């Protein structure tokens, strides 16, 4: 293994939050709004992460991800469903092998990550074996905050190896890292260790995804691209509930990383309730009427 020292720039909270707020002030109207919302659907990791999840519930989710709304609205499928490891096999069964909708599984002792590496590896291998083609791991925040960055790095690298051909998303759980400096540093470690995506949150800790924290991570991705030539993906997750919010994220990606990242291959939004709000807006634009939730199927 090589040892090198890499510079991680600091982040000024006030200025980055101002910049983040500027994305929310973009006025997205008419055709841009419709195209943006459809893109958001295509980037969505439709998620259920509950103790009470059952195969039946996973069936609803998968059906919704495959076809979010009637075909007349020409809306794409979601990018993936995101479930607990025990639900992976059901998701794979409902989605089949070539639907285009991926099966993502949280893993590595989600959400806390306070488990031995051995069980985390085993969990990862099993989820992949059950049909997950994306693994959303959590980092060891305890180790990170204690300053043991090497442990964080080694775990990610080990999980990466265990993933095999599956893509790895590394959840930083930014709500527990607290400062933007920590987020920036954790992003750097996650990318260097082999993560294909970096992801904000488990959704189990508040605050979950925010625009500024996502911006910090996008900037880390940008700098990593210039340094290493590798495009890492980004996934904000948790707390994104409205179409308006999701468009602000899209604006941020467009203005920070540019066109190459405006694709589900490199940008995902993890959400459970966002989808129907986006669909309501799509229908509003198409049909011209403000919508009622009962006209939109639950997942």
């Amino acid at each position, binding site marked *: 293994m090589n040892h090198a020292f*890499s510079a991680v720039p600091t*982040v000024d909270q006030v200025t980055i939050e101002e910049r983040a707020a500027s994305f929310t002030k973009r006025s997205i109207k008419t055709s*841009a709004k419709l195209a943006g919302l459809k893109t958001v659907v295509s980037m969505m990791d439709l998620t259920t992460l509950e103790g009470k999840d059952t195969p039946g519930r996973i069936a609803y989710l998968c059906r919704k991800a495959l076809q979010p709304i009637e075909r007349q609205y020409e809306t794409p499928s979601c990018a993936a469903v995101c479930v607990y490891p025990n639900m992976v096999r059901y998701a794979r069964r409902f989605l089949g092998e070539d639907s285009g909708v991926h099966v993502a599984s949280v893993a590595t002792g989600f959400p806390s990550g306070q488990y031995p590496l051995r069980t985390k590896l085993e969990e990862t291998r099993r989820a992949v074996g059950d049909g997950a083609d994306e693994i959303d791991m959590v980092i060891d925040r305890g180790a990170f905050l204690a300053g043991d960055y090497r442990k964080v790095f080694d775990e990610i690298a080990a999980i990466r190896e265990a993933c095999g051909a599956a893509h790895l998303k590394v959840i930083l759980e930014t709500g527990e890292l607290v400062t933007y400096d920590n987020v920036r*540093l954790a992003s750097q470690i996650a990318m260097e260790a082999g993560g294909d995506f970096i992801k904000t949150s488990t959704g189990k800790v508040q605050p979950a995804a925010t625009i500024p924290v996502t911006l910090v991570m996008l900037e880390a991705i940008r700098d990593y691209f210039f340094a290493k030539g590798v495009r890492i993906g980004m996934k904000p997750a948790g707390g994104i509930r409205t179409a308006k919010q999701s468009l602000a994220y899209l604006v941020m990606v467009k203005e920070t990383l540019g066109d190459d990242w405006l694709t589900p291959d490199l940008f995902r939004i993890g959400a459970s309730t966002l989808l129907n709000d986006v669909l309501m807006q799509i229908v509003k634009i198409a049909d011209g009427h403000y919508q009622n939730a009962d006209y939109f199927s639950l997942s």
Partner: protein
Amino acid sequence: MKKSKILPRKATAKRPVAVMEPPAVLREAKPVVPAKERRLRFGSRWDYAPAPETVPVKIDPRYELFIDGKFVAPHSGKYFDSINPATEEKLCEIAHGDATDVDAAVQAARRAYETVWGKMSGRDRGKYLFRIARIVQEKARELAVLESMDGGKPIKESRDFDVPMVAAHFFYHGGWADKLQYAFPGKTPRPLGVAGQIIPWNFPLLMAAWKIAPALACGNTVVLKPSKTTSITALHLARIFQEAGLPDGVVNIVTGTAETGAAIYHHRDVNKIAFTGSTEVGKIIAKACAGTGKKLTLELGGKAANIIMEDAPLDQAIEGIVSGIYFNQGHVCCAGSRLFVQEGVYATVVRKLRDRIQTLRVGSPLDKNTDVGAINSFSQLEKIRELVRSGQEEGAEIEQCECSLPAKGYWFPPTFLTNVTMSHRVAREEIFGPVLSVMTFRTPEEALERANNTPYGLSAGVWTDKGSKIFKMVNKLRAGVVWANSYNKFDPASPFGGYKESGFGREGGIQGLSGYVKLN
């Protein structure tokens, strides 16, 4: 003690990370873009549709002078056209006030001062200012649209910055009106009398508020002259004064040209001149007022240094650079027009800045997504072009936002120049446009020396993560406003004004009051 000449180390991480390469097999799995092809593409994969501000506004075909509480025709009977710089279309006609009109305005102001305003209790003066603040808030969107149409600035800025700040200035100063004795411990502040105020075209309404609010709070009456190219919102402000019931003559607005302004500062019965504008004109006014006993405050030009240290939060520094020079098309006296970047991060900063300016949206001031609007006038556009040309002739390299510009109107894309040295004209003269001159430095001491190497001294910026360095830099920069890890921030509670040839006196804050009172 000997000064340290040791170069600072290259940027170091706050917490260095031992970076370990992942297993080779995984590394190879990801496509690696060759170094030469690593660039961001800011295209139209998904783009914003037009988002015009749709609040309707009524612009009168003709605007008269506002004297003694009434709108009156100019003595000369002459009017000039007000042009929308984004379309080159005529918006309306503006009265061309002359010395006779100025005299009438000064007389009205004197009368109002002696009979009403100078005698009024501070509490009541304050209540008028609060009223004005409230009406400005009520008419905020209309004022913002007018400001953008008249001056070319993006609606985003007039809506989110100029107009809210106008209300804030009236509100802040309204509170001072009955508390002035606490601003001057041991003294009894008294008003000066009639204040003549001459304001520029870059923040027409905001500059009017900066001038009028403290003057009225301190018990003075006002004769204000807006800039020729941007008079409309000042006259709408006059209507707000009427609506607020402000006594006749307390504020008078005489539109016109430089000669109109000269009639104000030459007028014998004016006790105070407040001017915001170029250093060149400021000197003329200073000379004219010398020996007359007129109290004078000047807020003039600048060529501010924005200093980026190696240990700066670089991505935020980029935002500071952008707001420093492209805010309001760079028509800002405190614009951070000289960028000094420490050599170790120069390439990174230039690369990031190059990418960042590609995302700036140049175009219709009334589109809510416009970041950079129209250049205020054709003559200003010519000046910007001339200076940029001179920079290129002197060997500077140009980087520009590759946006398409509207066919009509006055436009200049966000630009920065590299390969600039301290002796380039673009590094010494105020461009007053969206043009940044980028230079480098090696040590903090050198940055200070270069930053201070200008006759101006209005503002400066410094970006570093090290607290003690910030205080040292703040202390040594010869500028009236220093933004540390920030840029172009304003607040009515924060005094603004320059060192050296950027003028004297302060506007805003407790210190800003002293320009409008006498203490002996």
